[in-house]
Structure formats: C-alpha cells, structure tokens
C-alpha cells in the first residue's frame, strides 16, 4: 500500500478484495473486458436473450444469494437492480475462470441446504441424497433460513466471490447493467451529476478559513 495519493497499498479503495482476490486496481486493469461484458448484460436483459454462462437453475440460485447480500428492504436491492444478468455476463467474460469454483460453491451450498433441511425437518427428507429431489432449493427457502445458511459460508471463497460480484455490479455505472435505475446509487445516497458547486456538504459554511 502506498500514499493516499498513490492509490494502492492499504488504500481501502483498492481493498475489499477478500478471498475472491480482486480489488479496484484489478478491476481497473480488467475494465475493457468488463465494459464489454456489461454492455452485453444490458442488451441481454433488454432483449430477453438467453443466458451467456449460467444455466437458468444456476442463475436463479446465484440471484437468490445476491438478493440476500443486498436485499430488498424498504428500497429495492441487488435483484431489482439487475444483478443476475450482470453475474451471468461476468462469468461469460472477465470472471470466466471462476465459473467452476462458483458451480462447486453452489452445489456445496445446496448440500448444506439439504443437510440443514433434514436436521430441521426430518419428516420426508432423504438424508442419503443431499442434493436430491426431496430437498428444497436454496432459492426456495425462507429469507431467514437463507440468511442462516449464508452466515455459515461467509468468508468462504464462494461467498466472497458472489459478494464481490454483487457489490461491484450494484454500485458500478448503470451502463454496466447491474445498477438499473441507479438503484445501487440510491442505496448509497450518491447523486450522479457531472459538476458541482459549493457548498458541497452540511459543514462547509463553518470554516474559519485556512
């Protein structure tokens, strides 16, 4: 990490990478690919075109996870912002190498669902077949149970990957496809204008002068 002016180092704005191993700097380098993927995401969503990397099952499950990472509350969340398409496009392009890990993570999560389901609801659950037809899908669980399960995998490579994609997609430029109607920016209170005039914030007027 380096000077506050020199980007990098512990500069938190290049941090936040976590186990998925990708902070802002990495993103900056990937931006061209990323931009192309994002435009495709938008076009795909608009035209209702087929998914680029995920099966519809995977799409539903990943979108369900993202919808708990940034949930709909009194305001819309990641799902409403279009995160599913964004993630699909990411796995078709700049995060393609991570797709196998994401698939593994999804089936491990589903195994947890089945195991938890059989523990909590012994009646009818088939404990010999954790991924089997009898277990509900993660996306079908109640929000409370989804959250309980995600708490158990927080910090895992899979969780951090999906979190990273969800956060990045939700707060990036809407043209990247995951911040539709500026839903992400409204969560933050970020106001998108090209230029500003002072006063900028509530304390500006209190200066005594340098």
């Amino acid at each position, binding site marked *: *990490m*380096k000077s506050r002016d020199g980007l990098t180092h512990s500069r938190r704005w290049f941090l936040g990478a976590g186990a998925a191993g990708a902070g802002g700097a990495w993103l900056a380098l990937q*931006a061209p690919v990323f*931009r192309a993927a994002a435009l495709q995401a938008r076009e795909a969503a608009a035209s209702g075109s087929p998914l680029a990397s995920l099966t519809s099952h995977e799409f539903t499950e990943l979108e369900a996870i993202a919808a708990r990472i940034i949930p709909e*509350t009194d305001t819309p969340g990641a799902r409403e912002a279009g995160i599913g398409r964004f993630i699909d496009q990411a796995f078709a392009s700049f995060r393609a190498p991570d797709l196998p890990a994401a698939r593994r993570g999804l089936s491990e999560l589903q195994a947890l669902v089945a195991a938890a389901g059989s523990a909590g609801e012994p009646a009818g659950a088939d404990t010999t077949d954790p991924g089997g037809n009898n277990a509900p899908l993660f996306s079908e669980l109640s929000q409370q149970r989804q959250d309980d399960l995600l708490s158990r995998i927080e910090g895992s490579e899979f969780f951090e990957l999906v979190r990273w994609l969800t956060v990045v997609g939700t707060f990036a430029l809407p043209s990247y496809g995951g911040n539709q109607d500026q839903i992400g920016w409204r969560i*933050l209170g970020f106001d998108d204008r090209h230029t500003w005039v002072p006063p900028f*914030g509530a*304390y500006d007027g209190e*200066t005594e002068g340098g």
Partner: protein
Amino acid sequence: MPLSLAPGRHGGVRYQRRQEVDFVIVGSGSAGGILARELSVAGFSVVVLEQGLYRRAEDFEHHDDFATMVKTPDRALTGSLDDDPQTFRASEHEVAAKATGGPVANYARTVGGSSAHFTGNFWRLRPLDFKERSLLGDIPGTGFADWPIAYQELEPYYTKVDWEIGVSGEPGPFDPPRSRPYPLPPLPVKSSGVLFEKGCRALGLHPQAAPMAILSRNYNGRRRCYHCGFCLGFGCEFGAKSSTLFTTIPEAEATGRCEIRTGATACRVPTDDDGRVTGVAYFDSDGREHLQRARAVVLSANGAETSRLLLMSESSRFPHGLANSSGLVGKYLMFNGGSSARAVFDEPLNEFKSVQVTRIAMDFYETDPERGFYGGGGIDGRWIDFPVTFGLGGLPPDAPRWGARYKRMLGEYFNYTMDMTTHATSLPVASNNVTLDPTHKDVYGRPGIRITYRDHDDDLATMRFLRDRGAEVLEAAGARRVWKQPVRPQTSTAHLLGTCRMGDDPAASVVDRYHRAHDVPNLFICDGSSMVSSSRGQPTMTIMALAFRAGEHIARFASQGDI
C-alpha cells in the same frame, strides 16, 4: 496487445528516425513533460519517447470508478500486468511473487505520466529536507544523506511550478520562504476540510488550505475545476488538473521542435566506444525495434522504469548497467509512508463531490527526537472512496458485510464519512530496491520490474504516530465514531523515489547536482529517482521543480558545447 494510437493527435513536428536529434527524452510524465518544453524552447530538437497513448481531456471518462480509465478502449491508464508483469518481495531472501491485484509500481502510462491522474497535493520541501542528515546525524543501516543542493537553490523553480504549471493555495504558518505568492487562491473548502480544521484548532494545531495542482480559477487559457469528484486516479475532463499534459507538453509541441512519439517503449540506451550514449532503442506498438539517434539522452521514466532501463543497458563497458559504477542504480527506493483513520459524522459531508483534499496540517513535519524514531509528515482531511470501492470496503471493520443491516449502513455512512490520511518520510535503505526480475518478461521480452521493499521500523513508527494524531483530530472534530486503519508494511506504491540519487560523490550517487550521470557525459537522469530523501509524502512538486532546474542547466551545457 497492440496499442491503438490516434494519429494526428500530436501537435508537434515529426522527425525521421534516422535523423539524429539533439535530445531524446524517455517519458513524458511530471519531469519529462517539463524537460521537453525547457529544451525545445531553448532551441534544441527533441524527441520524447512515451510508451503510453496520447490521451487528451476529452478522452477521460467521467466517474467510471472501475475503470478509472479513458474511452480509448485498449488499456487502463496504469497498463496491463499481463503485458508487463511486476513482482514483489519483502526481502532478497524471497522469490518475488508476480503482482495480480494491481501494480506494485503504480503509475500512469500515458502522455503526462502520473501527472495525468494524480491527486495534485503539491507541497514544497522545506530547507531542513535538504540537510536532514547534517541536522540529525547518521542513521545506521541506511543511506540517509544530505542533498547536494539547498532549498534556496530550488526555490525559483518551485515558483516556476506554481506559476507555469498552476498551483492553488495560500501560505501556511510553517511554509518555507517563497519569492512570489500563489498564482491562484485555494479551492473551495469541503466539509472534510472544515471538520479537519475544527479538530486541529481544538488541539492547538495549525490547519491550512491544501496547496493543490488544480486550478481554482480559469488560468493560462485552461479551465478551472468543476468539482466533478472523480479526481484521485482519474484524468480530468476539464483539463483543470495541472498535468504536464495540459501545460508544458502542448507548449513544447508548439515550438515546432518537439515530437511526442507515443507507443514507443524504450528498451536500451546504447553506448559507443567512448562510453557516450548514442540514442535510445525502443519498440514501437507493433513490436518493431528502432533506434532514435541523439546527441544526448535524458531519462525521465520514473524511479522504477528509469532504473529498469539503465540495468537493461549493461554492456562490457558497463557490466552492472549503464551509469552504475556506484552500484546504486535502483537502490534506496522510497515509497513514502502512509496511514489513515476514518470517521463518521452526524450531518452529510457529501465527500463524493470535488477534489480529494482541501485542508492539511504540518505540525508534525519535523523529526522530534523525543519520539524515539526518525520521521515526520503531514496529515490531511479528505475522501478516498467511490461508490464501488465504498461498497466493497468503506464501512468500519466490525460492520456487517452483507444483508439488510449492511445495506442500511451504506446509506448511513456513504455521505457522512471522511478520512484523515498521513503522508510521511521513508528512509533510504539499500535493500529496498528495483531490480530486473529473472523470470517474468513483458510482451517485448524486457525483464519485468522486481521490487524488494520493507518499510524501515522508523517509517512504520511514523505512520502509526501520525495516524494516531489524525484520529485525535477526528475525535476533536466531533465525529460520531472514529476507526483507525491498521499500519502494515507497504507492498506497492505510487511514489517511486531515490533510485538514481543525485550527489557530488560519484561513489555515493548516480547523477551529479545537474542531473548528469557521473559515468556518462551525455546522459542525464531527472525524475523521482533523483530524490535523495523522500519528502513528507508529496514529492511531485519537487520532481517538477528539479525538472525546471535541470532543463535550464542542460540547455546551458548544450549551448556551451559542454555535453
């Protein structure tokens, strides 16, 4: 990946490669952009080799916080680590690991170099910085040394930077003497500045307006800052950032004697039988190698790339690299220390607007022997996040990282949070250095940059000390909550300093006080590598002043036939 150059963007003359010019300058950044103007205005023919693209204000895209890049679709400003890998290790006993999460030596590969996207904090050194070794004595295990020049000698050139590059500010209580006032008043204060000021005053400190290389008013035909807010790491769409891109480079081209040749990656500085350099060999963007012949060569490729080029230019006459009889090329690399604390307040600050910094305090600038360690620096009130980065890591470390509470806290913190950051000394240590990586090569086959670095214990102590003082300022400003970011040894930098230091003794420095290589009469080196000590974390004002001064002396030598 070939660069797509935009022909016709260049405003200057085009020379035939066969034609010998007076000067080849490698790099068009903070130093190279100024030297190009000084030497072409003085009447010399100049070719500047720049590996990056020629981007202008209209190429910089607003608020793409992933990309922090331009519309030019090929590359991010900082380049691609796939094309040009860099490696890092903390000590020479380790095998350096290839960087993946971002460059180790972080700089912009574009016309203007890192002045195209810097933050613009422009602090002069003080007289003490030039003679700290004499004032404080030796620090064993380091190359702590005085500069061969004093503040008074550089002062006129600092003033040139103020007026010709464009610096906004007003004098503070500890400022060094200046021969002329600032040309422009300070930028309008932000809430982070007001709160920083309030906290400082409550503690008896002396806040002052931040001197910034950003125009607070229209100036010299350039537009002022419109407070877009995407500043740190972004090129300015308004041309308000005082980069060489918007100042000296167009002036150099306007002489009709200076060519900025882009997509030209220097790979070797060849020498003749007399040990004089004959020009610079470089790859064009199609990977073809050329030689631009010149009577003299100036290297301004920054502290990492200049060292790399010299080390790559070894020969039987210069077996350890060109201009390296001292063995100091690449050594004494200094990153500058940095640390930070963050706070959340009751009312909205809206820090996403305008420039990064509006208030600073210099009360801890000097080394205080009472503290028990060498070092000092400045602190400032600022903002360093953008929407994506805030979402990834902007909340306090104990905050939830997902879920409804995470989402709510993002809204409660984004517009209410500010940073206090510190900018501090680094000691020159020989084991901190730039060398050629033995394994990783770039697309042209050049060895990658390998950086070996561990902050000196005194540097880490200074970072902690300043961070704790800054956290007190935030408390005193009435923050609802303050949290300190951990201080850890740094593993990357945007400050590439000290690797070809200047000095009078050829055994203990690479260039003389006029930036001429001790070993090679027609080779000059002027950029961040020239610095003998690290500054208090904002080196570029000094790099630019050195370039103005070097330009004047080099032009004088050339006119006198003394090259």
